[in-house]
Structure formats: C-alpha cells, structure tokens
C-alpha cells in the first residue's frame, strides 16, 4: 500500500503579521486516488503562474513569505520517484527614492529568487527580510510533479504569498482627523464671534 503524505512539519512564520493571499486550489476528495483540481498524475506536470503589483501606502514592505502545502504519495515516508511540489518567486521592487515609478513597480530586479519545495529536502516556506520597499511586482510559479508511474496523485493545496510591514502605532482614521479639524475651526469661529460681540472699552462694538 502507498499511503498519502503531507508536507511534514510546516514551520511557523517568522513574521507576526502577513498581508496578502493564500491561494487554495480546490481539493474535493484528497487521497491517493482522490479528486482535486491541481492534481498531477503519473508523468504529469502542472504549473500555474501568478503576477501582480503591490503598492504600499502609509507604510513600507519589510518582508515576504512564500509557502506551499500539498499532499503526495510516499513509501516509507519517502516521496515516490518523480514526485515534487515547488514554488519560485521573483521580485522587481521600488523604494521611496524611485518617485513616480513606484506605482508601476518596475524599478530594480531583486537578485534573490525565493524558492520553496518538497525535494531535495522539504522546504515548504521561505521568509525574507526586505528593506522598506514602497512597491513591487511579483511573479511566482507553482508546480506539481506526478510520480513516474502508478495511479497516485500529487496535489498542491496551498500557495501563500504574504508581505510583512513595520509594526504600526494605532492612529485615528482619516474621517476622525477631518471631524477633529472641522470641530476645531468651528470652535475657533464661535470664540471669535463671541469676542467680537462683547463691547470693548473703546465702545466700538
């Protein structure tokens, strides 16, 4: 019998908070002969590529986490020959010094490619610290490789891409600032009217 395995021991994140997305291929019936929509059978390779731009407003990007999870056939806790799950991520980033280029996110290639994978040794997560990026374009590729033979299936069940930001001090919302400003001006106006309505010593009011 060939039991189904999970990526072992998902490590905890190095970041207290992450902002981004968990992409979740649908697995309706996991198992060696189950059904899922990102499932590689014997001799098959499935790949999906995702791209997007992220722009920071009122904060910066100081970290990134790339993570995958999946299920795959094993024998004696070793993935069957040919089986693998992988993720690769490339960044192009901008900083505040790049001015108007930030929104396009096409300023500087980040030389450090992020990778995760099941083999040669399980490495389901990669956390990287970044230096106050103001925007970035992200290109990532996730793949599932089926076994060399047999009828077992490899599933990709999660592809996570999250960003870390500096810990924020809680501040009032913009609407609160607006109300505060209007209130102060109104109070000032009333005080001004009150002062003008009181006759002064010269009797000119």
């Amino acid at each position, binding site marked *: 019998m060939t039991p189904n395995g999970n990526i072992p021991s998902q490590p905890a994140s190095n970041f207290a908070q992450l902002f981004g997305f968990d992409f979740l*291929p649908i697995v309706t019936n996991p198992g060696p002969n189950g059904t899922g929509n990102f499932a590689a059978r014997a001799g098959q*390779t499935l790949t999906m590529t995702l791209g*997007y*731009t*992220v722009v*920071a407003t*009122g904060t910066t990007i100081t970290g990134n986490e790339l993570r995958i999870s999946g299920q795959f056939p094993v024998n004696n806790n070793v993935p069957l020959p040919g089986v693998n799950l992988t993720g690769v991520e490339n960044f192009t980033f901008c900083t505040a010094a790049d001015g108007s280029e930030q929104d396009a996110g096409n300023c500087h290639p980040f030389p450090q490619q992020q990778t995760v994978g099941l083999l040669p040794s399980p490495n389901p997560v990669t956390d990287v610290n970044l230096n106050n990026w103001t925007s970035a374009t992200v290109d990532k590729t996730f793949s599932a490789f089926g076994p060399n033979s047999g009828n077992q299936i490899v599933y990709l069940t999660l592809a996570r891409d999250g960003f870390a930001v500096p810990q924020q*001090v809680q501040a009032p919302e*913009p609407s609160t600032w607006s109300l505060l400003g209007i209130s102060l*001006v109104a109070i000032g106006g009333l005080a001004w009217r009150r002062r003008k309505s009181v006759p002064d010593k010269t009797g000119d009011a």
Partner: protein
Amino acid sequence: MTLRSISVFVGAREGAGKMTKRFGLSIGLLLSIAALQSVGAVQAFADSCPLTGTIQTLENLGSGGCSIDVGGGGSLTFSNFTFNSTGPNVPNAGAINFAVLNGPPRALR
C-alpha cells in the same frame, strides 16, 4: 456641503458689513481641509480586497486593484493580477480560490 452650511450659518447671523469676516472664516475652513489633505489625513484608497474569492475575482479588479488595511493608517494595494496555467486538466483562474491574509498568519499542518 457641511462646511458650506456652517459658513452660511455663521455668515447669516452677521451684519452685511461683516461679509469680509465671513469670507475669512470660509477661507479658513478651506485651508484647514487642504492642510489635512496635505498631510495625508484624507486620502482616496482602492476598495478593500474581498476576503475570499477566486483568482478570476482578482484579475477582474484590473489596474484599480484592491487594498488590505495593515493598521496605523497604512495599506497595501494589489493590482494588475495575471494568471496562467499549463498541464493536463489544469484549473483556470475561476477554479482556484483565495483567502486574504490580513494579520497573524493562519497555522498550517
């Protein structure tokens, strides 16, 4: 509209000879709002990202994208999503779900 109403209200109770002062107050209000905007207190943000959906949902947002609040008045705006898949019976963008990450990361097995 509210600011104008305040200005008109204040001005209506003054004599005609004090029109200059009324306009002065109105200008003060406008300058106050401008100052708030200049420090970023009043900004236009992209719509908040839906908490769940499919990759097709994100693609449909186009260049406007959507934003995730990171606290402290900051946000990350995600836009221009693209998706491609290859392989036998591979799912399309409408068949892969997503869930937003917006805080402590969910634990996995």
